[in-house]
């Protein structure tokens, strides 16, 4: 008996009980749809985060101050006040072969006020290099120039979201906003980058680095030339490791370090892989939850197949009496279970893709768009998994059917 013959027999018996077959399939449909949709959302989240990290610039290395280690007590990362504007200047001017550009920054929080509106946001002190290194584009006006930095000018370039929150869409160029009671003239507006989560890049206000240290910082930081982070752009992707090495060596020399570095160097790749790890776990978790419903669907198949075997005991007896072998009967019931689960799987994939699309079209948190991705691999995985579920949960009922004694089966009423 051929496979096609088995499938034909299976389809005939399944269509004899349409409602029951449909309900059984529903379990698998829901399971597979959930797997496809949730994995798609997980993938979408991963890509959104990747996009955000990549929008920070290309071939970047981030240098940040290390942890303070005082009498054996280690404070949190970045708490040390070791990285200075001079370090940044040195990195840019020492002729390191793998370093293309250096952009130091200093971050602080401040309240920006314009007319009746105010917003508490991140104030970033930057140099002109920041624009290219960190991949910002000026939408209107101009970026901070070298003159602004040397002169500690009170000028500001504002993020796209600030325009809406402070200016209600009014043209901000040339207006004066007050940050921590210091007046700043708005000279430029940044193009929106999109993205969301912590430290939204569109919520920032950029001012000259020197101005932050001279006028906005409080306490110890006031008047210092400390920086929060130095972004270093490597000449190309292949040079990133060399750049890390060169930057580290120069800083060790400048800081006269013999044992433990007082700074940390991370590449953009490190950030990406950390983020991917997190989203990978998230995707796996979502898939796992959905997988449970697929399992429940599989048990549904087993249940119905067992009922079906009992109900069709007589049919099995007849088939055996006219020459069906154990394997024929086994194949028939296995095929029925598998046809159920594969049909359910295919419908589930379609349903899952539709659900994923609906989730994509719903905006989540501001400008963040979650483009869920239903990949070929998750489709393949779901199909395989559905088939495996059908086979696995079909084997026992099919085995029961196959091992029925033809006499008992024929006598069964």
């Amino acid at each position, binding site marked *: *008996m051929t496979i096609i*013959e088995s499938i034909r*027999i299976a389809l*005939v018996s399944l269509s*004899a009980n349409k409602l029951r077959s449909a309900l059984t399939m529903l379990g698998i449909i829901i399971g597979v749809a959930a797997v496809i949709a949730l994995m798609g959302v997980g993938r979408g989240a991963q890509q959104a985060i990747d996009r955000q990290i990549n929008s920070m610039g290309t071939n970047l290395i981030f240098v940040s101050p290390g942890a303070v280690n005082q009498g054996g007590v280690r404070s949190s990362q970045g708490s040390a006040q070791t990285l200075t504007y001079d370090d940044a200047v040195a990195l840019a001017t020492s002729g390191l072969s793998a370093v293309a550009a250096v952009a130091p920054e200093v971050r602080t929080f401040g309240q920006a006020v314009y007319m009746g509106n105010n917003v508490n946001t991140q104030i970033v002190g930057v140099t002109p290099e920041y624009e290219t290194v960190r991949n910002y584009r000026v939408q209107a006006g101009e970026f901070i120039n070298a003159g602004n930095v040397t002169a500690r000018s009170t000028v500001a370039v504002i993020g796209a979201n600030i325009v809406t929150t402070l200016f209600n869409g009014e043209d901000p160029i040339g207006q004066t906003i007050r940050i921590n009671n210091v007046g700043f003239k708005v000279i430029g507006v940044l193009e929106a980058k999109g993205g969301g989560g912590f430290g939204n890049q569109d919520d920032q206000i950029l001012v000259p680095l020197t101005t932050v240290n001279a006028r906005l910082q409080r306490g110890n930081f006031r008047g210092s030339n400390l920086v929060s982070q130095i972004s270093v752009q490597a000449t190309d992707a292949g040079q990133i490791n060399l750049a890390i090495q060169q930057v580290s060596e120069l800083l060790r020399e400048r800081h006269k370090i013999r044992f433990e570095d007082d700074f940390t160097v991370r590449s953009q790749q490190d950030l990406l892989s950390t983020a991917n790890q997190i989203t990978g776990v998230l995707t796996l978790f979502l898939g796992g939850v959905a997988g449970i419903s697929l399992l429940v669907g599989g048990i549904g198949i087993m249940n119905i197949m067992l009922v079906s075997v009992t109900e069709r005991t*007589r*049919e099995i*007896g*007849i*088939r*055996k*009496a*006219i*020459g*069906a*072998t*154990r*394997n*024929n009967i086994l194949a028939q019931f296995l095929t029925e279970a598998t046809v159920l689960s594969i049909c359910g799987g295919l419908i589930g994939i379609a349903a899952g893709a539709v659900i994923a699309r609906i989730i994509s079209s719903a905006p989540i948190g501001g400008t963040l768009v979650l483009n869920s991705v239903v990949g070929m691999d998750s489709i393949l995985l779901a199909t395989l998994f559905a088939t495996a579920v059908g086979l696995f949960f079909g084997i026992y009922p099919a085995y029961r059917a196959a091992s029925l004694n*033809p*006499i008992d089966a*024929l006598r069964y009423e």
Partner: protein
Amino acid sequence: MIELENVYKIYRMGDSEVHALDGVSLKIEAGEWVAIVGPSGSGKSTLMNVIGCLDQPTSGSYKLDGVEVARMSDRELARVRNRKIGFVFQTFNLLPRTTALANVELPLVYAGARDRRQRAIAALERVGLGDRLHHRPNELSGGQQQRVAIARALVTNPAIILADEPTGNLDSKSGAEIMELFHRLHTEQGLTIVMVTHDPDIAAQCERVVHIRDGKIIGDERNGDRRRVPGIAEHLATPAILVPEPVATGATL
């Protein structure tokens, strides 16, 4: 062709043992038409199932065409049931919701035959149902259903037809038609037919009657040879042959 020797079939029911077959020895030659007669519970159906390779004897030897059935694997048994034996049941046992044609095709499916459709149609035409190919069992009368069952038994060209009370569920007219059909098959094609019945009138139409009671054979008699003999076929084909000859059938019942 069928050779049973000292066959026992013992069922265990709780503490007691039921001897459904209690030392049965029986020989049936090719081309015979045998009725197995006995009251209910006499073991005739068990004997039938053993002969049909649906059931295995507890002890004793059963040789089919010289091959010991007890030594056959599940696969071989299925093959024997498929190719050598055709079953006809009292309750027809057709697959419900399946057309007559598909029912008759089924043994050919398991046999892996190629020209299934034509052969199934031919078998249905042989039993006079060429115009009912696409009817489902619930659209057919009892007699017609039984004829579909006979077509299904015939379609693989088996040597033996085993019929278990084939007329038991039919009115007398359809019953007579079915018996006529068996006659034709037997005389025209020399099919070996083994028929279980408790109806003396039916038994009287067979060539040989084996009486069974309490799992033992208590009588084995011949009604005379009705097989087709070349030259007198016309005579044998007349309905007159269906009138039972005055023999002492049913006396033991």
